[in-house]
Structure formats: structure tokens, C-alpha cells
């Protein structure tokens, strides 16, 4: 199965006609283009769609786009112009508008260093270094002994790291580094590493070193070397084309290359999928539980098919353990559907692994809508895995923003297909990710308590909540940046910030960045809210960012947060709080947020923006059932106590 064919996307025989139809309808609708990008496309169709896209939205993103437009600097050492259409189309597939700046041929270093270059004028918000193997090994000398080879290696690595640093310092934006394509022929063979100076050995060494180095420098990798391993070097690289056009990556592989980059761009904005919704019959076990019964389904050791299904369950569990939520959506009687989870000895997935279990006879689109609503996540963060083409097409038609892979017919290939499609592309893993299932399970227990408590007050009191707040710090940075970039619903301004911005706030005396952790009797909810405040001239504190995880809605965290913000604002000498609401397609739930908290309306813009004011002199902290804990002070006194103890 060729990856470069994007085989998980549905192929559409009417595609050429649809493009023409979309083009005829002026003005061209962005959403129609997104739909066209979500079909299986080869490189020619990709270019076709790109022409249409550029005609309609050349350098200007459509107004009111929920995603952040990306300005990508593509810094390459060989021809990459042929990859641009695929990059734009793959970004479009995820609803992102992409503008690309390509440094002049072979000039990436000069442009980086020259503050007046086109690159600097372009002001990228993401930089991708796409350096080819021949360029990076240009200093290699086959006859070099080990110390000489080490020197060449170190020089190359230092050059890379200094490029990253310049890019970061100049543009204060995320930097991506493409790993090196293993396209150079060996001079020894299997034991190439015994010729330390060989270009092929240098590429292998660079790729191994890039992992650690990128980590150290805060750079994310585009691991095309891994994909080449799966897909075969020959489907990515054609020496004939290298000599004809200096294309290291063949145009045929461009759609996949574009998709791999766009996954990273989407992940930066928190647009990766969050939940895998599984069908049951013939998706996680073989056969139909309602017909075949517990003994009849194929699952587990003993048959090749049964083992393939176990392998898929195992992969789903691995995804869960790194933070993907699992749900079930099956056409079945609930008791039948649950039976394997409760009674089948080979079943790997447990009922407790599933955050939401839906088995009934309603149509799957309605059930999937209910799953998104109950888990409080957007429909666009769901991936629906179902072996049945009919169900897949129904869900695609009813809910086009749900991702529905074309699962191969053989269950042995399911896990690979989900992985190849890259829906769950991640950039970092946090403690909250590892505990997510636990979080959702604890939420269910809280709901039970809620049902038992006679009124909301006694329920909240019974939770014994503690809100532990800290200023932004290095320890919490990954989670802070993750929340800032992926929270869409409870997010007043949807401003996205990078690691660098967060560090800048740590040192800002005229502002504050706060991370809030909620603990209750059922466990630690982790960091669930972020607030950024900035002092303005004239005694106003502007609430630049206020966002919260929807998991903790309705638990007075909003009121508790306001008490805290007021306290911190007073500390900075503020007399008034200014709150803003900037509408997006996803955050209407907080349109009345400041109104509810007792702010007075200040201003309203034509685009639906509103601003609000709260006079701190007249502010009385709300009565709440949450105990506030100053986490920084607690650690300081802990540290002091330890010193005394020692």
C-alpha cells in the first residue's frame, strides 16, 4: 500500500467535475475547497486544486477563519517549488490557510543572516528547514578516519543548530527541521558505519543525532526518514529527477510530504484529533456479536484474524495511554455489545478504557454527534473507525468534518491505516495526557455524585475542591502552551502563543501568566485554566487571555479565577479590569462570560467583538466552595521546611 497515495482518504470519481463546479460559483467558497481537499488526490489533482485555491485565496485568508493562517518559510537547499501546491492543499485539508515563502535557490543561509532579505520581510510564523542529503553531506570525505569524520559531523550539526537559533531569535516562532532522506548509495554495504567518512554513514548519524539535538533546542522534527522506511526510498526519491530538476522529493510523493508538514502545522494549533470512535463488529473483533455470540466471534490467539483484531485493540490502547480518548459507536443491543468487554477472556480493551459507550439502533451520525456533545469536544476532533463502507459514507455525508478513514479490508492493516493517516499527530506529551482516561472516568464518578446530591450547592461543597495556582514556569510550560493552542470553546480571545511568548511573560513585571490546577476528592484534574493579564497605561489591567478546559464547567472555577485575577491585578496597582470577547466559530459559549461575572459592557466592534469593564474598588470576591492555594508560595515554604529539616 503506497503511502504517497494517501490511501486513507476516500476517492471520488466525480472530483474533476466538482472542481469545475466550485470554480464556476463565484465567489469560490472556502468550505467547498476544504471538502475537495479531503478526497484522495494524486499530485496532478493536488496541483489542480492548488490553482483553484490560489485563484480564490492567493495571499489573503478568508475572513472569520477559525484556524490561524500560517506563514511558512520554506528554507531548502534544492528544488522545492513542486512541493508548494501539496503543502497548501494539505493545510487546506485541515482548514488552514497557508502562505509560503521560498528562499532563493541555495540562499537560505544568506537570507537568514540578512535582516533586509525577502525572508525577513515576509515575517514567517513557522520556519521549515528542508535540507537535502547531498547538501548536508557536501563536506563528507570517504577516506576520512574516525576523528576526521567526527569533525565533519560536528561541523554539520553546529551549522544546523546555529540556523535554528537564528531563525528562532529573528522570528520568535516554531522551527521545524526535516530529517535527512536516506538516498545516498553505500560504498561498503551492510557495515557502512565502518567507513565513518562515507556520505551514507553521515546521513545515518545525522538522523540519529537530530532527535536529541532538536529536543535540546526546542525544534520539532519532520521525520520523513521514518516515512521513507515504510514507503520505500524509490517512491520518494528518483535519481533521474534529481539530475533533471534537483528535486530530492519526487512530485509523486509531494501529496504525502505536504500532508506530513500540515499535520505538524495543525498540531501546533491544537487541531489534531482527540478521540477515536470505534465500531465493534468486524472492527475490534471478527464477526457479529449479536449473531455469532461470545463463543463465535474471532478474537485473540488461535487464528490469524483473531490476532489481527487483538493487535488493533492493542494499538487503540496505546493511543489511549498517550492521551487519545476512546469511544464506541455500534449498532447493537447494548447488552450484546458489552458482553465481550465484560466476559471475553481475550478482550484487551476494557469497559473502563472507553470514555463513552454508545450501542443502539439509531443512525451513527446522530450517535457520533451525541458522543462529541457529551465529551465536550468538537466534531472535528473525532476519528471514526468502521469496517463498513456504508456507515463510513453515511457519516461522511452527514458530518463532513468527522475524519473517517478508508479502513483496508484486512483487519491486520487497521492500526497501520490509522497511524498512516496521522490524525493524532502530537508534538509533546504531558502528565495530563497520560492521565486522560482517568480524568474522564473520574468525571463520570462526579456525575454520579451530582445525580445523588439534591442540589448543586451541596454537590459542589461535597467535591472538596482546591484551585492551586502558579505563575507560568518552565515545569508547566508544555501544558501551558498546549492549552493556549488547543482550547477552542472556552476561550475568550483565542490568542495563540509559542514557548517564546510564554517565557517572555515569566519575566514580565507589568503582567502575569497564571496556570490553574483543580484538585478534588476524585483526583487531580491537572492544569485546567490559563489567564494572562497585561497592565495598560491608566490603571487598567487587560485580560489578554482567559481559557478553561470544558471538563470543569459549572464548578465555580470561573468565579474563583476572577477572584484570583482581581487580587493579582490589585497587586500590580490596577484600578479596573478590562475583559474582551473575540468571537470565532467555536467560542460562542463564552459570549456572555463577562456579563455573567458582573462586568459592565464597554464597547462592541462590527465583527462581534465586545469589551467589558469591572471596577476593582467596588469588587467583592464571590463566595465559592473552592479553596484557593498559592502553589508558588506552597513550594517556597516546602523548600524552606526541607532546609530547616536538613
Amino acid at each position, binding site marked *: 500500500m503506497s503511502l504517497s497515495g494517501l490511501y486513507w482518504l476516500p476517492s471520488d470519481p466525480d472530483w474533476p467535475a466538482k472542481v469545475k463546479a466550485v470554480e464556476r460559483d463565484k465567489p469560490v467558497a472556502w468550505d467547498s475547497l476544504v471538502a475537495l481537499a479531503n478526497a484522495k488526490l494524486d499530485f*496532478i489533482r493536488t*496541483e489542480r486544486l492548488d490553482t483553484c485555491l490560489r485563484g480564490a485565496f492567493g495571499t489573503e485568508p478568508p475572513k472569520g477563519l477559525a484556524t490561524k493562517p500560517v506563514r511558512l518559510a520554506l528554507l531548502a537547499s534544492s528544488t522545492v517549488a*513542486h512541493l508548494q501546491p501539496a503543502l497548501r492543499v494539505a493545510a487546506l485539508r485541515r482548514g488552514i490557510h497557508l502562505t509560503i515563502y521560498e528562499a532563493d535557490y541555495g540562499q537560505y543561509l544568506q537570507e537568514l543572516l540578512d535582516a533586509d532579505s525577502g525572508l525577513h520581510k515576509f515575517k514567517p510564523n513557522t520556519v521549515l528547514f528542508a535540507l537535502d542529503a547531498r547538501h548536508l553531506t557536501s563536506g563528507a570525505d570517504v577516506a576520512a578516519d574516525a576523528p576526521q569524520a567526527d569533525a565533519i559531523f560536528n561541523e554539520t550539526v553546529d551549522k544546523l543548530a546555529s540556523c535554528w537559533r537564528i531563525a528562532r531569535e529573528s522570528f520568535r516562532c516554531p522551527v521545524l527541521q526535516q530529517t535527512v532522506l536516506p538516498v545516498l548509495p553505500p560504498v561498503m554495504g551492510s557495515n557502512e558505519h565502518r567507513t565513518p567518512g562515507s556520505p551514507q554513514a553521515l546521513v545515518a548519524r545525522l538522523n540519529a543525532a537530530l532527535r536529541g539535538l532538536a529536543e535540546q533546542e526546542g525544534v520539532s522534527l519532520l521525520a520523513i526518514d521514518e516515512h521513507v522506511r515504510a514507503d520505500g526510498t524509490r517512491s520518494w526519491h528518483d535519481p533521474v529527477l534529481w539530475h533533471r530538476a534537483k528535486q530530492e522529493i519526487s512530485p509523486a510523493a509531494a501529496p504525502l510530504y505536504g500532508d506530513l508538514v500540515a499535520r505538524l502545522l495543525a498540531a501546533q494549533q491544537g487541531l489534531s484529533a482527540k478521540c477515536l470512535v470505534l465500531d465493534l463488529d468486524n472492527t475490534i473483533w471478527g464477526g457479529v456479536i449479536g449473531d455469532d455470540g461470545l463463543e463465535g466471534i474471532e478474537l485473540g490467539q488461535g487464528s490469524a484474524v483473531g490476532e489481527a483484531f487483538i493487535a488493533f485493540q492493542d494499538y487503540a490502547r496505546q493511543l489511549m495511554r498517550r492521551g487519545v480518548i476512546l469511544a464506541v459507536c455500534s449498532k447493537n443491543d447494548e447488552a450484546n455489545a458489552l458482553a465481550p468487554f465484560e466476559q471475553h477472556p481475550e478482550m484487551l480493551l476494557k469497559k473502563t478504557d472507553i470514555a463513552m459507550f454508545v450501542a443502539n439502533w439509531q443512525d451513527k451520525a446522530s450517535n457520533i454527534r451525541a458522543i462529541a456533545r457529551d465529551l465536550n469536544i468538537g466534531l472535528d476532533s473525532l476519528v471514526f473507525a468502521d469496517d463498513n463502507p456504508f456507515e463510513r459514507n453515511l457519516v461522511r455525508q452527514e458530518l463532513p468534518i468527522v475524519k473517517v478513514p478508508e479502513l483496508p479490508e484486512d483487519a491486520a492493516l487497521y492500526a497501520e491505516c490509522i497511524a498512516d493517516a496521522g490524525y493524532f499527530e502530537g508534538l509533546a506529551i504531558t502528565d495530563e495526557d497520560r492521565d486522560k482516561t482517568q480524568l474522564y472516568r473520574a468525571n463520570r464518578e462526579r456525575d454520579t455524585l451530582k445525580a445523588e446530591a439534591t442540589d448543586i450547592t451541596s454537590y459542589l461543597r461535597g467535591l472538596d475542591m482546591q484551585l492551586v495556582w502558579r505563575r507560568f514556569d518552565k515545569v508547566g510550560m508544555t501544558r501551558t502552551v498546549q492549552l493556549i493552542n488547543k482550547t477552542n470553546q472556552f476561550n475568550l480571545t483565542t490568542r495563540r502563543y509559542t514557548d517564546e511568548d510564554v517565557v517572555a511573560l515569566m519575566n514580565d513585571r507589568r503582567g502575569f501568566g497564571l496556570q490553574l490546577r483543580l484538585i478534588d476528592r476524585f483526583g487531580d484534574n491537572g492544569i485546567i485554566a490559563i489567564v494572562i493579564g497585561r497592565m495598560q497605561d491608566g490603571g487598567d489591567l487587560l485580560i489578554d487571555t482567559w481559557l478553561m478546559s470544558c471538563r470543569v464547567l459549572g464548578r465555580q472555577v470561573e468565579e474563583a479565577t476572577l477572584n484570583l485575577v482581581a487580587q493579582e491585578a490589585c497587586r500590580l496597582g490596577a484600578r479596573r479590569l478590562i475583559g474582551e470577547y473575540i468571537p470565532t466559530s467555536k467560542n460562542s459559549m463564552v459570549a456572555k462570560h463577562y456579563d455573567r461575572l458582573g462586568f459592565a459592557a464597554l464597547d462592541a466592534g462590527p465583527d462581534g467583538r465586545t469589551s467589558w469593564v469591572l471596577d476593582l474598588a467596588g469588587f467583592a470576591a464571590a463566595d465559592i466552595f473552592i479553596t484557593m492555594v498559592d502553589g508558588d508560595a506552597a513550594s517556597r515554604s516546602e523548600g524552606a521546611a526541607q532546609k530547616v529539616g536538613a
Partner: protein
Amino acid sequence: MIEAEIYTALTEIFHEVFDDDAIVLKPELTAKDVKGWDSYKMVNIIIAVEERFGIKTRTQEIDKLQRVGDFVKLIEAKTAPRP
């Protein structure tokens, strides 16, 4: 593969690559006659042809091509059944 079949398939490829259904392929047609037929598009045509016909072309063979007729002859030779 007979010549007529090759022309039909090649025409489809040209229509897609240049996004122009009005292109009519004739043996004497050259790159100068088709708007936008540059070296970049040529690479795309070659790859599409290789995929469509299941063949592999050589650098020298491509460099010798002058007219569409030469291209069709090359494809014909490469797809001819081996004795």
C-alpha cells in the same frame, strides 16, 4: 498498446496537467504549442505517464524527445510485449 490508445490516455494526462480540455494531441505538436508547457510541467507529465503506462523512462530518452509523436513512439516501444 496501439497508437490510438496511447493518444487517448496521453490526452487525458495533458488535460489534467494543463487543466485544459481543449488540447488536441497531434504527432507534430511541440512544447512551444502548448501554453505553460515548461520543464516543470514536463516532469509532471513524465511521472504521470510512467504511472499510467507502468513504464520507466531514461534521462537520455526524454532529452531526445522533440514532438508529441516521438513521445508516443517511446511509450509504444516501452509497452510493446516482449518476445
